């Protein structure tokens, strides 16, 4: 087992990205993710990489688009309002099938909102987040270790499927300090014959583009892209099950909400309530099959979220009305307490004969 170092979540993302071979970072300061940029500003010049503080989030994502076009690993990071600004570039990345990693350390919204942790960008991240038919792969870490591991995995998946990956963290994860092992398996390098690296007068020119004026051609690229998405859905779903073997009540939660929920589950178990957790690690593709399977035997599902209830819609779609799905939430930068979740578990237990 390798040595562990104590790191902030945001710093773990940055160091993991460097280990994954990312040498280009573009960003714009915004709380609560600025440590990523600060870390990159220190490290990149020492290792021959690029750190550039862009004039805006919009410029930053388009610089990402430029590097991604050349086939190199590249990332940007921001927080909720900044991600909205990046929406245009995210859609173009999808339209041109470019791999990149985008980190969103979420804060409360809408609008300028606040600077405290939130999960209220779930819709934005998992349902596209900008114009047009597309998806990002969305990874939701629940520890500083996962902040690092999923950063590496995010780059690998992006390259493998020519997709943008979003690491969807929150302010708590970003600021939290935990011991991290930085010993990763890096996937094999993916060939990128489509990259615009100069023809060297040896091949036809490559074009990176999302414009298709003929509707037949645009439809075809959309269908082809969604065939690729189907492969991702079939092969890349990640989730954690906690005490689900004999569970009669299931909690659905990701990120910091899952950590709070585990505390509540441990307490509920002491009180004799059989409750477990399904924690989606990929929010897209969503572990729908796991929730559908759980719905065969639990009496109810509680979605614990730092939002007004966003993931709950995907849980409901997954269980197709077989069991009631209720919401236990805080919003606007507030975090549900273990006690609040325990109360929700007790309420489900009292009313929950299947």
């Amino acid at each position: 087992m390798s040595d562990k170092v104590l790191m902030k979540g945001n710093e773990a993302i940055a160091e993991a990205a460097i280990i994954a071979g990312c040498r280009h970072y573009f960003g714009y300061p915004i709380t609560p993710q600025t440590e990523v940029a600060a870390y990159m500003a220190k490290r990149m010049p020492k290792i021959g990489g690029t750190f550039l503080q862009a004039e805006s989030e919009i410029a930053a994502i388009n610089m990402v688009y430029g590097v991604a076009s050349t086939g190199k690993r590249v990332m940007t990071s921001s927080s909720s309002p900044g991600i909205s600004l990046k929406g245009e570039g995210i859609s173009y990345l999808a339209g041109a099938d470019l791999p990149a990693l985008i980190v969103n350390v979420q804060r409360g919204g809408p609008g300028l909102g606040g600077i405290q942790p939130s999960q209220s960008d779930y819709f934005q991240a998992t349902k596209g987040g900008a114009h047009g038919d597309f998806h990002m792969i969305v990874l939701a870490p629940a520890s500083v270790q996962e902040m690092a591991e999923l950063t590496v995995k995010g780059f690998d998946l992006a390259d493998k499927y020519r997709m943008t990956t979003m690491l969807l963290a929150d302010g708590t994860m970003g600021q939290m300090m935990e011991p991290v092992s930085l010993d990763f398996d890096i996937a094999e390098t993916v060939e990128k014959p489509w990259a615009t690296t100069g023809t060297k007068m040896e091949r036809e020119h490559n074009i990176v583009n999302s414009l298709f004026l003929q509707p037949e051609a645009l439809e075809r690229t959309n269908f082809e892209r969604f065939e690729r998405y189907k492969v991702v859905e079939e092969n890349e779903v990640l989730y954690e099950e906690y005490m689900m073997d004999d569970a009669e009540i299931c909690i659905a939660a990701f990120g910091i909400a899952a950590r709070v929920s585990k505390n509540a589950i441990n307490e509920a178990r002491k009180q004799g309530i059989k409750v477990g957790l399904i924690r989606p690690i990929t929010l897209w593709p969503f572990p729908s099959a796991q929730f559908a399977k759980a719905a065969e035997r639990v009496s109810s599902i509680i979605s614990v979220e730092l939002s007004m209830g966003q993931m709950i819609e995907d849980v409901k779609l997954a269980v197709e009305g077989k069991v009631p799905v209720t919401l236990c939430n805080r919003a606007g930068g507030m975090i549900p307490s273990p006690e609040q979740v325990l109360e929700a578990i007790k309420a489900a237990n009292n009313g929950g004969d299947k």
Partner: protein
Amino acid sequence: MVVFDKPHALADVPMHYCPGCTHGIVHRLVAEVIDELGIEGKTIGIAPVGCSVMAYDYFNCDMIEAAHGRAPAVATGVKRSDPNNIVFTYQGDGDLASIGMAETVHSAARNENITVIFINNAIYGMTGGQMAPTSLPGQVTQTSPYGRDVNACGFPIKVCEMLSQLDGPEYLERVAVNNVKNVKNAKKAIKKAFENQVNNKGFSLVEVVSSCPTNWGLTPKKALEWIDEKMIPYYPLGVYKDRSAE
């Protein structure tokens, strides 16, 4: 002996531009320069949104289509990815001077080592002739049907003059393509803008005063005359910054 032929870097395909549109001339000048410098194999061009959106089909070097106004940011990424490559953007006035003004100013301020070809024809062509940031005072367009009223919609932006106030950029020149002499000067400026990049001198922008016969409502010939009569008096030709020469 061949006196004149299509440059290799220009693709041998029909261009979608209207009859008499000078985009084609500027495309050819860029391609001639790429040929003369022998850089086609390591050049990456960035196309804008606007009339020249499909420029990616017209050059034989690698090409990228950028979001509206973002070409200098995309070019920054491409150049930083491999500084040995030659990166140019080709942008219209709406793209460069309106929606993409921040990207323009900041890439110039950073002295980003890229070449920017800026087509100023004082109108939005692709969308059918709306007012541009460079439309002249009083100019009638679809969205200034009574003529550009500077009290209501402000004055045109003189990009070269504005950028020349920055310490960053290496080279700024305004040229025109409305007659043989001006086209030859434009070629020289474009060549210099690429040579500057090859020699790692930094941000070089050539503003090309161009025509839009269709949306100006003029014949191709009259449109070129209008450049002399109306455009050049407001947008004087010349070098606005040449740091190496200073």
